């Protein structure tokens, strides 16, 4: 048994040596363990689906090298360095959380290797960088979408905004929402909480006295779920509105019936894909993982395809050329819509609004830029 194993590995070694020239290495720097491991795992699933559908480019096999950043900022920088320097990848799909992308991005920038973040929505991530891109829209846009939706679709005139003061994501999003909502003529009250808080009764008691038409919580799902429960217990029956951080099956598991009526802005809805490739993605994902893909999975999928497309257009696997090609992506058909990357490395595309209805994430509408 042992001998066969050794033989096998020797053969594989030879095979890989022979075909080694025929591969393109792409690094994947995700949080696979630690606090936000769930995001990393979901996104990686999407990347894997893309790889299984489109395994090659320029006649070469695409090899993914996954590195875990342990949801830790120091490691986020280390893994990018490791992928570039140790694994010699040509491009990186990576870093989910914006703070991680900022740490990793400066390394990619220095090494002139393109890094494409699937889900970092903070505007600062790509700011002033030539090798950092993203496959998702940015927070100002998401905040704008939320404000438009709240004002036009929910007919809300008074909103209470709950800001998670710990999360830059939440602070940024709340800021952009407030700016646009007030500009449209709405009235805003602010409340604050922090990640890890489990009791929101004080803020909610105060908030409900303002009789809001909508409560906007641009935070992450654990707190949104708990907040929804406690708000319902305090008698609030109106809608919640959240950002893409709300999207996780745990929202419903923790929140139960209380999260019905939570609207959130997102990148994608598996029930209503915009594009043909989106349908293909949903079908393949369901086949591989026996469940509906999340928005993060779709973004992971698109990141892979965007990179593959850029390599194809560049006609080369040189990092510099891939980066240049990425920058000229125009109207690319991805699972989350038609994607254009602007000169700053940001993606311009439509956003969807979903709602939790009977414990299911249900599509509501699409809002275009």
């Amino acid at each position, binding site marked *: 048994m042992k001998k066969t194993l050794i033989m096998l590995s020797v053969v594989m070694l030879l095979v890989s040596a022979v075909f080694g020239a025929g591969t393109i290495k792409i690094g994947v720097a995700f949080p696979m*363990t*630690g*606090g936000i*491991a*769930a995001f990393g795992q979901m996104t990686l699933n999407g990347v894997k689906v893309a790889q299984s559908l489109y395994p090659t480019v320029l006649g070469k096999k695409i090899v993914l090298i996954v590195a875990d950043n342990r*949801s830790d900022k120091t490691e986020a920088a280390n893994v990018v360095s490791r992928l570039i320097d140790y694994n010699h990848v040509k491009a990186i799909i990576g870093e989910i959380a914006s703070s991680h992308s900022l740490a990793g991005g400066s390394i990619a920038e220095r090494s002139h290797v393109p890094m494409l973040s699937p889900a970092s929505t903070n505007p600062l991530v790509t700011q002033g960088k030539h090798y950092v891109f993203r496959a998702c829209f940015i927070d100002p846009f998401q905040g704008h979408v939320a404000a438009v939706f709240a004002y036009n679709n929910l007919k809300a005139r008074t909103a209470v905004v709950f800001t998670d*003061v710990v999360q830059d994501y939440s602070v940024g999003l709340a800021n952009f929402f407030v700016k646009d909502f007030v500009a449209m003529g709405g009235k805003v009250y*602010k*409340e*604050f*909480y*922090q990640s*890890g*808080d*489990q*009791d929101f*009764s*004080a*803020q909610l*008691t*105060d908030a409900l*006295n303002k009789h809001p038409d909508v409560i906007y919580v641009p935070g992450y799902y*654990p707190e949104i*779920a*708990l907040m929804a*429960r406690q708000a319902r*217990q*305090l*008698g609030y029956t109106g809608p919640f509105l959240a950002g893409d951080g709300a999207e996780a099956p*745990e929202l419903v*598991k*923790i929140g*139960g019936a209380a999260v019905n009526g939570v609207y959130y802005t997102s990148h994608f809805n598996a029930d209503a894909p915009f594009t043909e490739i989106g349908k293909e993605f949903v079908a393949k994902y369901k086949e591989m993982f026996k469940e509906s893909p999340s928005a993060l999975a779709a973004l992971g999928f698109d990141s892979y395809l965007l990179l593959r497309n850029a390599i194809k257009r560049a006609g080369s696997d040189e990092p510099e050329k891939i980066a240049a090609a990425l920058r000229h992506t125009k109207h690319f058909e991805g699972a989350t819509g038609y994607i254009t990357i602007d000169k700053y490395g940001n993606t311009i595309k439509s956003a969807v609004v979903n709602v939790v209805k009977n414990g299911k994430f249900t599509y509501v509408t699409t809002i275009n830029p």
Partner: protein
Amino acid sequence: MWLTDFAQNLINGTLLGGLYALIAIGYTMVYGILRLINFAHGDILMWGVYFALYAVVAFGMPWWLGFLVGIALAGFLGFGIEKIAYRPLRNAPRISSLITAIGMSFFLESLAVVVFGGIPKSFNIYPKFFNHTLIFGHLRIQTLTFFILGITFLLLLGVLWLLYRTKTGTAMRAIATDIPTTSLMGANVDRIISLTFIIGSMLAATSGIMWAMRYPQVQPYMGFVPGMKAFVAAVIGGIGSVPGALVGGFLLGMTEILVVGFFPNLAGYRDVFAYVILIVLLMFRPTGIFTVYSEQKV
């Protein structure tokens, strides 16, 4: 309107304070007897909740049996921790035990990440009637509030009965003052310290399960903040004093809720209150509200 708000906040504060108090009782009991800040208390709490969750989800037990199994296993865990990590260091410098306790906390968290994964799990294994909301005019009270208060007082009475009405309790109090002398008097010190840890850990698990019923989400780091807050509560009440832990817990819970309720802009500073109270108390009245132990002699 102002009054209703105040009353509602007071009710919310009672609920949170009751939870702090429940955790603080276990904390203060272990400290009172061993003079060890058991950093791992919050993590034993977390493991108790996981045990209960898995007993129900994986083994299909009814919720009440699952809770009891969770509590019992947590007691067992506490027993093991004391035996393996704390007992060998009982005669070492106190700082060594403290460092080991920190290491233990770190270990229990890391082990939970490996065993249960880092993703928060939902704790929805208890009957729905605990979540029922009773409405009195403008006030809304969750049924769970009464349940938590009831359990807290019951356990408080139980602990007080154990400490002051049983032979074991007398031995525990004796150990609290002087280990060598107590062992000379014929009490089995090891056994009694083990027992203290088992009871302390079971109290932690009980409070953890209550905590999870209020905030139904379980993750490996869930024990840190409650543990820290309960420690502050215990210091407020005079560490080592069981009734003090109760008062400290309620005071802390109320303060946090009321301050955030009336100064919503300060929500970001919520934890600062607890820490400032802690520091001020440590500086000026380290014995807390209920003085139990006097200064040691030179």
